[in-house]
């Protein structure tokens, strides 16, 4: 029964990872940029909302203001750094986003110090439902999972039905031709960046609620997000949910064996999935798991 509890916790954790991974997936899908600063941006969100809350605003207000600010940050980042990086070459975005990650982490440390923080949400952190003696489902994890589902669903709807969403998909598939039928590719990229960074900020807020964060927490979150995206397959938001759940369950089940094994289990599951994909791809005579998934990197 304890295993069932762990699996349930893992699934709920997966919701968080899926939300975290959404921005990474979106940025790659639309702009072909793997943002190595993505985890750090989530942490920026966490700190921002913490800071607003600390100054006396309610969590709700802090979230609202914080997310808008994060969206704006995404726009600024895209304009100032990412646009240029893309034009400069395929590898340059990796170099600049990594450099950005270092800048962000250390600026956060400079401003907020070494203290580990979390967001104070009162009883929400502990409340839950006791289902059996061994299965306890917390309200917060469920809330996060539901919000993650809603966000993913909303984004999926946006991409498939909304004019801007369609324009985004078109730009992702063929930016030159999109321009030729009237789509402002640059504007689309700005919108995608805004959404990506805002969702990262939301994920950061959730991180602060369910766990702790500090200035250097970014890279770990980035790796989890990346693992979720890869396992679930790019191009599918629901795949990202699946990937997030896979990582979440791997971690919680691994923790049951030994707390020290928690994160490592997640990594090993990721590597196992990657290996299987590579074997499959090699068997199909095409190289690279991205190619095997039908997405060109």
């Amino acid at each position: 029964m304890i295993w069932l509890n762990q699996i349930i916790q893992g699934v709920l954790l997966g919701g968080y990872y899926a939300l975290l991974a959404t921005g990474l997936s979106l940025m790659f899908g639309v702009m072909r940029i793997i943002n190595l600063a993505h985890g750090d941006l989530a942490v920026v969100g966490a700190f921002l909302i913490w800071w607003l809350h600390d100054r006396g605003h309610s969590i709700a207000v802090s979230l609202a203001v914080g997310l808008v600010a994060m969206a704006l940050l995404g726009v600024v980042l895209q304009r100032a750094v990412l646009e240029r990086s893309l034009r400069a070459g395929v590898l340059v975005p990796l170099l600049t986003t990594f450099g950005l990650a270092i800048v962000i982490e250390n600026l956060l440390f400079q401003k907020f110090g070494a203290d580990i923080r979390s967001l104070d949400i009162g009883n929400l952190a502990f409340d839950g439902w006791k289902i059996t003696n061994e299965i306890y489902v917390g309200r917060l994890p469920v809330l996060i999972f539901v919000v993650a589902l809603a966000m993913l669903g909303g984004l999926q709807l946006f991409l498939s039905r909304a004019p801007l969403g369609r324009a985004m998909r078109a730009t992702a598939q063929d930016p030159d031709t999109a321009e030729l039928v009237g789509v402002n590719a640059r504007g689309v990229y700005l919108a995608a960046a805004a959404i990506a960074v805002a969702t990262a900020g939301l994920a950061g807020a959730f991180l602060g609620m369910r766990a702790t964060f500090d200035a250097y927490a970014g890279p770990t979150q980035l790796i989890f997000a990346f693992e979720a995206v890869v396992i679930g397959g790019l191009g599918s938001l629901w795949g990202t949910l699946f990937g997030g759940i896979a990582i979440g369950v791997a971690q919680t089940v691994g923790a049951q064996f030994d707390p020290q094994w928690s994160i490592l289990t997640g990594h090993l599951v990721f590597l196992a999935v990657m290996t299987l994909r590579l074997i499959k791809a090699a068997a199909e005579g095409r190289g690279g798991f991205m190619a095997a998934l039908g997405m060109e990197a």
Partner: protein
Amino acid sequence: MSILRVEQLNAHHGLLQAVRGVSLSVGEGETLALVGANGAGKTTLLRTIAGGHRASSGTVVFGGADVTSLPAHRRVRRGITLVPEGRRLFPEMTMEENLLVAARGGRKGEWSLSRVYEAFPILHPLRRKRAATLSGGEQQMTAIARALMTNPTLLLIDEASLGLAPVAVERVYESLETVVATGTTLVLVEQDLGRALSVASRIVCMLEGRIVLEGSATEITREQIVEAYFGLRRGNGGGET
């Protein structure tokens, strides 16, 4: 009344010059056929006019306004739309979604989804099909319909008949008649000289980036075009200033 005026246009691909000092004007409602061998610069010229390629020097004046430095999507708002070589549909989107993307990016006008289906009835049943699964002819029709959704006053079409079966080409050109009937100015790049002569009111022939022959379709003979096409003519054609 010329709707488009190109003056001393130069365009490069890296160090390679594809368009050399091209000057050209297109009258409102005209149908202009642009012919020439592969590599003559026709595609680059069209793309530069549409904004998909940057001119190295020279001007593109559309409807009296200088659009040379405008990005492609802004030119679409002004009324210039290009149907690119190779159709270039958005492969993972449905046929109808391809049309809808263009609707958002273009202008208001008579071309709407229903009007398009009326004019191109074969497209209606293909609404929900993924663009990548359409046949060559269906893709070409979709590409033209997509461009029409932006309600252009100047429609540029690059190689409408390339790679299509004769029956499909027939249907495409029939649909073009509908377009011309609405008063849209048309510039066509066409490999098939017969087609070009039958549908166009004016012919322009390019060779190595320059215009080497220009004139009305009724006056120019097939022989003249073939000579110009292959660069067999000595001395000036109509287009060199």
